[in-house]
């Protein structure tokens, strides 16, 4: 039960953060126990945006349910769709054409860039710098325009379908993406100049919110949160899907385990994403963008699991099929949920002002956690 705001018997202060609070990036409710300014306990309360997506998916067909997953982790909507499409393809044993594979990876990496840009702006805003927010959104609009031309939407694209992608690339796609890469290469250095070396920013980040590698593993953290603690967990490297196995890119890890390490991992990941896009943009194979599939998809009886690396970590799709046109049960393994569970461990012993910085580097998307 939610504890009332007030003082406990030990003289500790209990306060609420959220559900409506700008730095919770949505509607997360934290009940914080404080001793003076020091955090003793952080208790997250979920469910303020629980939309019962898993239950909904049980009554939607295998083509229909993918569109709902764009609304889960809306900053990685392509990658969510990708994970679901992969799982259905695994069950149906559909062979995806090479062109579709490359398009999917390109879109995934563009999405990852857009997500990290937004994270950078929002996190800098959380720790008190307003300007980076405007810088980040300026660059993000360029990606949104590219997405809009090809997919028809800016945010929730629903572009990946079982068997490939919904439509072929826009004729201007390659030109626009190359322009964007040239443009963003200079901007990412500007990001570093503006924020990374800033003394105030560093003092807010360095040594704050320490998470050891052991704790990261035991809490099930994935993505940049775990890689900031030195845990190698990039699904693109460990279990390569689509064309990731043939690409040259590094899995970015840092050993600090603090907020600054997690920050640096994401900044380097942006550069890696740019390099992946550069490798692929001139090598998009010709051919079909979608495999020929039946109008009504039926998965054979059984259990299927697939995983992809979103901007926040490992996203898993687990489908139990009874052989019908709709899944019997779907479970999504969302990265944010596991990362949030480590918040209490990370925040204990630090000051209340640091909590916002720690939450900022976790890059929480609440609808992804609540589903």
């Amino acid at each position, binding site marked *: 039960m939610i504890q009332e705001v007030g003082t406990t018997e030990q003289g500790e202060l209990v306060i609420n953060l959220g*559900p409506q609070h700008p730095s919770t990036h949505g*509607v997360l409710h934290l009940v914080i126990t404080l001793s003076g300014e020091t955090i003793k306990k952080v208790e997250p309360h979920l*469910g303020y945006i629980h939309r019962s997506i898993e239950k*909904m998916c049980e009554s939607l067909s295998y083509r229909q349910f993918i569109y709902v997953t764009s609304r889960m982790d809306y900053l990685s909507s392509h990658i969510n769709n990708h994970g679901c499409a992969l799982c259905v393809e695994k069950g149906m044993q559909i062979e995806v054409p090479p062109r579709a594979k490359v398009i999917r990876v390109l879109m995934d990496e563009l999405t990852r860039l857009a997500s990290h840009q937004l994270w950078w702006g929002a996190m800098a805003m959380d720790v008190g710098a307003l300007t980076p927010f405007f810088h980040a959104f300026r660059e993000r609009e360029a990606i949104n325009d590219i997405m809009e031309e090809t997919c028809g939407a*800016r*945010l929730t694209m629903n572009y990946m379908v079982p068997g490939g992608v919904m439509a072929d690339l826009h004729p201007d796609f390659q030109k626009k993406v190359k322009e964007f890469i040239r443009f963003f290469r200079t901007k990412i250095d500007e990001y570093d100049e503006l924020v990374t070396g800033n003394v105030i920013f560093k003092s807010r980040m360095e040594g704050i919110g320490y998470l050891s590698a052991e704790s990261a593993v035991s809490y099930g953290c994935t993505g940049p949160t775990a890689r900031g603690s030195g845990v190698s967990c990039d699904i693109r490297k460990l279990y390569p899907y689509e064309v990731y196995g043939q690409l040259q890119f590094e899995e970015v890890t840092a050993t600090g385990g603090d907020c600054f390490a997690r920050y640096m991992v994401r900044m380097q990941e942006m550069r890696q994403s740019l390099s992946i896009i550069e490798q692929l943009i001139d090598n998009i194979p010709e051919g079909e963008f979608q495999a020929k599939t039946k109008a009504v998809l039926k998965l054979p009886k059984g259990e299927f699991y697939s995983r992809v690396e979103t901007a926040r970590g490992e996203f898993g799709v687990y489908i139990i099929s009874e052989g019908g046109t709709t899944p019997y049960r779907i479970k999504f393994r969302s990265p944010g949920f596991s990362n949030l569970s480590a918040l209490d461990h990370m925040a204990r012993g630090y000051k209340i002002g640091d909590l916002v910085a720690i939450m900022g580097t976790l890059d929480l998307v609440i609808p992804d956690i609540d589903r």
Partner: protein
Amino acid sequence: MDVVPQNMADKPFPGEVHPTAGGGILVTKLDEVINWARSNSLWPLVFGTSCCAIEMMSTAAAKYDWSRFGFEVARATPRQADVIIIAGTIVNKMAPVLKRLYDQMADPKYVIAMGACATSGGPFFYNTYSVVKGADHVIPVDVYVAGCPPRPEALLHALIALQKKIREGVS
């Protein structure tokens, strides 16, 4: 001194707009001035629950820039805000919180339901057990915006429509 209508006693806020049949020129002109001033300085509450919040942030940011129309002072507390933009799905657990936020806002207050979820439940209308089918089940809404999520231009249009409503004294 018969220009103040009888129901004014129930609503004691100065300058609140009423269609005053036979109202004096002084009061109606004063109302117009007050409404004009109000419509050009609407402070939105930072309230985003899901995907639409990102498009709301885009509207606030460099390319679309809602400060051109007088909305840039986004407030984190409802006590300082004039307009609440419901950006995202409202679920059963969030509904009492939304009501409380609305109650905490000072009069005059306005509501924009942004996106399909806040308008009607949208994609989550069928087969769910937890979604409120439209924010107007909880609080009164002035302007609805279609889309999932709406483009920033659509939100700007809604904000301008709200300004127009305020200026004409119908909201």
